[in-house]
């Protein structure tokens, strides 16, 4: 039996607890939608057996745990989850969208996967992405590109392409992603869904295939800000396996909030429609009594160069372990982009170049962090565009790696500084493609970002457009 698709966690759980539908029926519905929309290429593996197993468990506990306690014990009760194929899932194939791991079945699960399952979540499948999370379009997958659900001639953004597309098309209620240089925020922006990148050190990276270890953040996609917040509350905090994790005290949002508009993010070259839409979003906040203030992050311009030194350096080190001995295929199975990044990283770390490139980049990274520290003395958050343009066409940038790298210009700085950011969709442009903005805050300011995001949603109507688009799938 197919049911009316719930569009957020609250609706899902209300429906389950009121017995409007069962978790098994929910799974039937999502699996049907995945099957029907195979052409999006959002999923690499559909975990039907696991999903039905977990759904039956959900239906069982609904009869067992008193209704007043159930959501405290199982905050993600009945929530279908699509995991980016970088998250290890015990017994379910995990490929990193690379031929190197095309037959790899892990023996343990990532902390995020474990915690979401423990909270009542249902793993529906594993999503396609740029191989090893290297890319800004989804086109670097060894298993073919993902298509943008708003217009299939366009990319959904990357690297978490399948996760963004699966939520945008209602193939899963929520999805996980990894954000190393924008890989959650940019596909969320291109695909018209909410994308959240936590503070570095807030969510354990354990069991997620590493890209660049000083930048990787484990975040999520959903239709609404309240849903990524619910996921964050379940997955955050120490697990004993990732020594970068703090059990931070997350401060409640202040009563009077100031939002900064960083001038370096709004200069010539940014598409006019993107600029105007972000400024319109800032006016929405202003109308709600939030003060806007021009601020400056003078070293923003160097973010992309720092990122394309530090990140490939760490990539070359992390991908060194893939030698085809203990698992997976040998190094010849790496695709072109992985090879390029391994080469680039090895080059900047090699004798004679280390000081000029790697050490220099680490120093400029300090200056970028200092910029943010200064700005967050003046304001509580900043608002900025996510990408210089809306989604681009499939194939438009694949022949020129540098061109693709430049897509990351507005997102990498938050990763270099280790600070949280929330991408929120705001409008649809004349071509029918989503536009949006990001809110960036100081470390562990997640509650303020969620508060601002929910405020924005409560007085605007993008969610209705997304729900209308869902009906097409």
């Amino acid at each position, binding site marked *: 039996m197919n049911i009316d698709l719930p569009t957020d966690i609250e609706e899902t759980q209300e429906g389950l607890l009121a017995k409007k539908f069962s978790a098994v029926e929910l799974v039937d519905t999502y699996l049907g939608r995945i099957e029907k929309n195979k052409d999006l290429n959002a999923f690499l593996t559909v975990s039907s057996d696991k999903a039905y197993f977990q759904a039956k468990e959900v239906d069982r506990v609904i009869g067992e745990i008193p209704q007043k306690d159930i959501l405290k014990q199982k905050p993600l009760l009945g929530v279908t989850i699509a995991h980016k194929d970088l998250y290890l899932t015990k017994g379910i194939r995990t490929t990193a969208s690379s031929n190197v791991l095309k037959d790899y079945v892990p*023996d343990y699960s990532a902390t995020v996967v474990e915690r979401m399952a423990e909270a009542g979540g249902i793993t529906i499948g594993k999503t396609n992405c740029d191989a090893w999370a290297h890319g800004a379009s989804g086109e670097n997958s060894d298993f073919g590109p993902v298509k943008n659900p708003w217009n299939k001639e366009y990319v959904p953004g990357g690297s978490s392409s399948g996760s963004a597309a699966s939520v945008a098309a209602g193939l899963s209620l929520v999805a996980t992603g990894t954000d190393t240089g924008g890989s959650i925020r940019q596909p969320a922006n291109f695909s018209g869904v909410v994308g959240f990148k936590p503070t570095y050190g807030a969510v354990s990276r354990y069991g997620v295939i590493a890209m660049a270890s000083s930048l990787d953040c484990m975040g999520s996609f959903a239709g609404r800000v309240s849903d990524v917040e619910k996921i964050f509350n379940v997955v955050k905090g120490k697990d004993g396996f990732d020594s970068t994790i703090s059990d931070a005290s997350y401060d409640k949002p202040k009563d009077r909030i100031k939002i900064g508009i960083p001038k370096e993010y709004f200069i010539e070259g940014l598409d006019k429609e993107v600029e105007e839409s972000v400024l319109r979003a800032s006016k929405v906040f202003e109308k709600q009594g939030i003060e806007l203030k021009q601020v400056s992050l003078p070293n923003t311009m160097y973010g992309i160069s720092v990122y394309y030194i530090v990140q490939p350096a760490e990539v070359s080190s992390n991908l*060194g372990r893939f030698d085809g001995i203990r698992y997976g295929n040998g190094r010849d199975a790496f695709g072109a982009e992985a*090879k*390029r990044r391994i080469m680039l990283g090895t*080059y900047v770390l090699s004798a004679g170049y280390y000081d000029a490139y790697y050490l220099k980049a680490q120093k400029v990274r300090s200056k970028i962090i200092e910029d943010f520290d200064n700005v967050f003395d003046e304001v509580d958050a900043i608002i900025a565009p996510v990408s210089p*343009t809306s989604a681009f066409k499939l194939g438009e940038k694949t022949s020129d*790696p540098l061109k693709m790298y430049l897509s990351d210009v507005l997102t990498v700085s938050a990763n270099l500084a280790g600070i949280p950011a929330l991408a929120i969709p705001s409008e649809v442009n004349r071509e029918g493609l989503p536009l949006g903005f990001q809110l960036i805050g100081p470390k562990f300011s997640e509650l303020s970002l969620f508060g601002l995001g929910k405020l924005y949603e409560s007085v605007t109507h993008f969610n209705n457009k997304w729900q209308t688009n869902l009906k097409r799938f």
Partner: protein
Amino acid sequence: MILTHRFRKELRLFKKWTNDSIIGDMAKLSKSDVLHVAKLANLNLTEKEIDKFAPQLSKVVDFVGELSKVDTNNVEPTSQTTGLSNITRIDNVNLAGSLTEDEALSGSDKVYNGYFKVNAILKERSDK
């Protein structure tokens, strides 16, 4: 190189930011540079790949070289952003958190007597 409209825009954005042209003097990576790096990275590249990567890597290295003009005197490098250091745990054996031999070997079909098989790295002596 044919620049699309969109890329032109991004280029302008960057020129504005860096007051510089991306396509200036190339930091040229020669074929032997590429081969050297490939050897360090344990990658076997085909001739075709070398011809493809050399200009692509040159272009990126050239671009990121812009950092040379940033004044970083008296700036400490950042390797990570948590502010934490020397995080340790009690050194207890946790068998529940460990893989069994079978589990550890399950990812490979090249196993022998509970070991992984690897390629030989030494050659047999010819004078034996």
